[in-house]
């Protein structure tokens, strides 16, 4: 039990990383970032967890005998959860803007579409095409 949550945190981190590295769609990338971030929640909670202890809610003396798990990490995780959703929402807003611009670009003329990295687009061609466009 003791090492499983840590293994899970590492697993989520690397799965998210794999998703980001191989991502072909910016929305997919943002979601993978979310998966990666959830690894930090698991890590934090795993650090604060004590076997057999109860949740840190102290109502009229219920868990005082057994003791509670560390409440500090839970506060940290809460902050983390909120921060993550804000950051993801902001990146998504940028993604929508990209989509708007590139949508326009694609409609007006054919070639500029090749100058788009990492987003799937009607004309295909996703891989590092900015390389080509930058060559003099």
């Amino acid at each position, binding site marked *: 039990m003791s090492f*499983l949550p840590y293994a899970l945190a590492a697993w989520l981190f690397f799965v998210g990383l794999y998703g980001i590295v191989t991502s072909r769609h910016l*929305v997919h990338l943002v979601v993978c970032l979310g998966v990666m971030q959830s690894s930090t*929640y698991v890590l934090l*909670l795993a650090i604060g967890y004590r076997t057999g202890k*109860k949740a840190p809610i102290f109502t009229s003396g219920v868990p005082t005998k057994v003791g*509670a798990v560390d409440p500090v990490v839970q506060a940290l995780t809460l902050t983390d959860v*909120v921060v*993550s*959703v804000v950051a993801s929402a902001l990146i998504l807003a940028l993604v929508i803007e990209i989509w708007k611009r590139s949508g326009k670009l694609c409609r007006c003329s054919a070639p500029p579409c090749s100058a788009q990295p990492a987003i799937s687009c009607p004309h295909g061609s996703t891989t590092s095409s900015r390389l080509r466009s930058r060559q003099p």
Partner: protein
Amino acid sequence: MIPLQVVAIVLVGLGGLAVVAARDPLRQALVLGVYGLTLVILFVVLQAPDVALSELVVSTVAFPFILFTALAKMRDRE
């Protein structure tokens, strides 16, 4: 108690893999909601109910909602 935690951990692990493996954004948003639910279960069995509540709101309701809105906007422009 402990078997429950193991089950939750395995579920979250599989859920994370499923989210990353779903390449279509629309399907991925749905899988993400389910994944968020598994995380909520894990947090509950790790004795963190308040984190579980906020995660419930954020990752099974708010974040998929934002995603769907974003995808809908993109679909409009297509």
